[in-house]
């Protein structure tokens, strides 16, 4: 009888120890777990906006919609081909980012997209030669004014066409940040100008790692 009481007490004690240890570990794990977002400049967490329906035309005259964002990490930059300074600089940096990721086998589901804020002048043909120059893998989007609005409004893009200085010659003020959209179509990051290749890569990999841990 006394033996049975000792056994029961030992069992309860063992349960208590296991419970406490499990509690401490789970609390620790929870605190250090993936729910806590790392501090990354431009990282729009925990309330990223999901990109809704839009439709534009790529350089091959094919429709590019929100469906083409699914499953990709998409970098988007808005500009125009008549832009001599900021746009070539930014596309050059995006090319460097992409090539560096490729070199490190980290570009598998990454796509780079340039959206024209000057669709009147930037025809699909023009976009084709422009994108080819920077990187043949890049996507160039144009379309009607309404089609441009369908994505620009969602992402809060500003673009203002200035008055013509000569027939057909005008400048366009435009948002110069690079936007990052997750494979779940969430606007997850903003990289403000001036852009630095390594800084973008470092922040992107941290964000992708965090989101990957959330999903798993």
């Amino acid at each position, binding site marked *: 009888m006394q033996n049975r009481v000792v056994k029961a007490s030992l069992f309860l004690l063992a349960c208590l120890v296991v419970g406490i240890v499990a509690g401490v570990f789970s609390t620790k794990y929870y605190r250090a777990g993936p729910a806590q977002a790392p501090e990354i400049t431009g990282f729009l967490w925990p309330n990223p906006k999901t990109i809704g329906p839009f439709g534009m035309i790529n350089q091959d005259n094919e429709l590019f919609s929100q469906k083409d964002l699914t499953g990709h990490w998409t970098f988007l930059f808005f500009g125009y081909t008549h832009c001599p300074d*900021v746009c*070539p600089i930014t596309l050059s940096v995006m090319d460097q980012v992409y090539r560096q990721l490729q070199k490190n086998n980290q570009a598998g589901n990454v796509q780079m997209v340039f959206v024209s804020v000057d669709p009147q002048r930037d025809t699909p043909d023009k976009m084709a030669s422009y994108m080819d120059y920077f990187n043949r893998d890049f996507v160039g989007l144009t379309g009607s004014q309404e089609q441009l609005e369908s994505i620009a409004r969602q992402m809060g893009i500003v673009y203002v066409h200035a008055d013509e200085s000569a027939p057909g010659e005008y400048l366009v003020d435009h948002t110069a940040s690079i936007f990052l959209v997750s494979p779940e179509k969430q606007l997850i990051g903003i990289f403000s100008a001036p852009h630095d290749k390594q800084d973008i890569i470092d922040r992107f990999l941290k964000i992708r790692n965090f989101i990957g841990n959330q999903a798993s």
Partner: protein
Amino acid sequence: MCYLRYCVLFMLFSYTIGAAAEISINNAWINEAPPGVKVLAAYMTIVNNGTEEIRLVKADSNMFEKIEFHVTQMNDGVASMHRQDSISIPDRSSFSFSPGGYHLMLFNPGSQLRSGDIVPVELTFSNGVILQVEAGVRRGEIEHSH
């Protein structure tokens, strides 16, 4: 009388030579553009070793229809370009046209320019000095350092 005229001409010539020597241009280059692009940007550094402020008032090239001075400015993440009538370079200082800031905007090239091409550019300053610069075309690999 004739002697005096030659004397004045010689002094003017000497003055211009002297003033020109006080301005130097470094690292003039043009960012190569994709095929069909009609607006390019050139960058360079102008050094004013003189004791007076000078202004760059005009740039010309036989390879472009026209050249303007512009500055890119960022306001709340929005880039806008503003035309400048002239560029001031204070005494004993330098001024840089550089990517993302001030640039020479080159309109309508006569032909497609490729990396390695050399473009002659004529710069006119407020003190009457005119300098001929050769700007090399190259593909800009811009690496910002922070």
